[in-house]
């Protein structure tokens, strides 16, 4: 069924033209002196709220020991299968030899990552955290894969309340609980 558009004739103020221009200028001038609502992004950075889920990173404990023991639970739980770990044994003469196991290689494919934070939630060693970093860019697919060195660079050191492995080493050195 054809729909007839009703065309109203212009009112007097519309026909006069100037009042319309002035009301438009009022809006423009209001924004000219109002507070800025946008951000000059690359120069200015937003404040990140607590609990923000940024790029997943690996962290070290305050003694500089890598906390990840390559249990591969994050690899298992990762919904888009972005995490790939090659487990390895820590050599017997290394300072962290009492932990026995650590990642030989740790890769997170940021083209796959969906920032869900399940890896952080599942980690029994509190070694993986989604921190404040939110901008990942690269020119190639290869560049978008965060390898172990880059993950520690992004993650840095976080405080540790447990020192589970250090306590255990201490116990072993002091008679093994007997």
């Amino acid at each position, binding site marked *: 069924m054809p729909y007839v558009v009703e065309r109203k004739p212009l009112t007097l103020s519309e026909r006069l033209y100037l009042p319309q221009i002035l009301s438009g200028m009022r809006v423009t001038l209001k924004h000219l002196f109002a507070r800025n609502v946008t951000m000059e992004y690359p120069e200015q950075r937003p404040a990140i709220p607590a609990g923000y889920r940024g790029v997943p990173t690996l962290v070290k404990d305050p003694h500089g020991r890598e906390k990840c*023991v*390559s*249990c*591969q639970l994050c690899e*298992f739980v990762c919904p888009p299968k972005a995490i790939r770990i090659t487990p*390895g044994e820590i050599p017997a003469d290394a300072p962290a030899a009492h932990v*026995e196991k650590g990642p030989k290689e740790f890769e997170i494919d940021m083209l796959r990552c969906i920032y869900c934070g399940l890896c952080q939630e599942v980690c029994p060693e509190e070694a993986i955290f989604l921190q404040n970093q939110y901008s990942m860019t690269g020119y190639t697919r290869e560049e978008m894969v965060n390898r172990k060195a880059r993950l520690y660079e992004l993650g840095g050191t976080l405080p540790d309340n447990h020192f589970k492995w250090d306590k255990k080493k201490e*116990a072993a050195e002091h008679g*093994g*609980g007997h």
Partner: protein
Amino acid sequence: MISAPKPDLVTVNIDGRDLAVPKGTNVIEAARQLGIEVPHYCYHPKLSVVGNCRMCLVEMGLPAVDPATKQPIIDAATGKQKVNWMPRPQIGCATNAMPGLHIRTNSPLARESREGVTEFLLINHPLDCPICDQAGECKLQEFSTAYGRGYSRFIEQKNVKPKRTVLGPRVTLDDERCILCSRCVRFCKEVAKDDVLGFVDRGSYSTLTCYPGRQLENNYSLNTVDICPVGALTSTDFRFRMRVWFLKATPGIDPESSVGVNTEVWSREGVIYRITPRRNDEVNDTWMADSGRLLYKQVRAEDRLLAPAIGGGATAPEMALKAAADLLRSGAAYVVGSGRSTVEEQFLTRRLAAALRAPVALVSRTGAGDRLLVSADRNPNVRGALVTGLVSALPAARLDGLAADIDAGRVRTVLAVGEDLADAGLTPAQLAKVAVVYLGTHRNATSAAARVVIPTLTVFEKAGTFVNQQFRIQKFARAVPGPQGVADDLVTLAALATALGGAVVPADLNALWQVIAAEVKPLALVTHANLPSTGLLLDATPWAALPFVEGETLHFKPAAPAAATA
């Protein structure tokens, strides 16, 4: 007329359900038949019962009888015979079924007992699960989740023990995780007959160790890793390499000898990580030899043949097949089959030899049998060649017949299916006199001398069947895909047989089995899909007179006096 002896059945009542089981069945096995799991650590169906873990505590009772009249006492409320429940829980593994035995596996007392045992076991158990290789298949982990209290009341310091004790060349012990179930000790004593393990010290100091000056180095040492209910005994080869929940288990057959040990091949994304035994009570129980567990390394070996070649130069598969067919068609050919090939490949090899009217020889491989799970015949499938009619006599270790034929100029082309001719006694001069077509997996002297080389798949990359020393035909599945560009052995052999003028045969396993069943009389009733996972015994009488080399092994006694003693 003598009737078969009836198994002596006794009726027991488990959680209110009656069950008839053979006399001598223990409570754990009886409950398993009803689908009820009685948790246990130290009990193993193939080892003696010690009852030291106390995890399988259940409540037991016997029907009440009047001591004076021996009449059953009837409970007036239910009208049934009263049951006298024992005041204390009893262990299920060391209690055999007896008439009228009543069991409660899930009563408050049984549940409380399990919770108590679990708590004691966890007192000194380290919180190692993130780095423990057993995590995911650990009985302690499973039962703690199912029967534990979920939190720890233990505030004292945990016991610390050595974590990297090397027990032998293939086994590493993490002492802290050990729950002292003694399965490994019993295995070494009772099955491997190499009594090297034992406990020293007392109480929470108790430690598993080898006898002084000895190592756990027998060829069955890795079975202790398999039966360890926790992560105490670990395989040095598999240690820290992959979490078990990522691995896919494929049923396999151990190709190292004619015992035909059933295996599980564990792989992830086309990479094999370990091989463990698969239970088959007629062949290998739950054991396998260490030597068979490392065979997966051949899949990614450096010297793997990966592309077809003519005269040493890489070529396309069709060109290599055509060149091979042309060489073989020129006449005076000789076929060297293999006792390592599957039944299906041997059938196709026979077809091929028939099309060529060529004589066929196999190469035997022998070694000392260990009376357990490695037999004297180190070919897994010599009997398959007999069954399919590829050969009618047992093979020799050297190809003297072929050597004589080459010297006399009666043979111009040799088709070697997976066998190294130089290893089988042919000299380089003899190899140079003939054109060799080599189908094989790895580089060797024969592949170097061959005119045409066509790569084939290892036993882990293909499906098929082997016939073991008992004439039991057992199937295995493909665990990992083969390397890119390497065709399945069946495809290669079928294409060659067709190119040489034989009837067209399908290379697909199921379709091929219809042809095999129609043509090979002993396999008339067999299809690959319907073959049970424990194998099928074939009638061995046509070959009973052959002097097989195998001696006695587990579940096998040679029918005739063996030519060579094990």
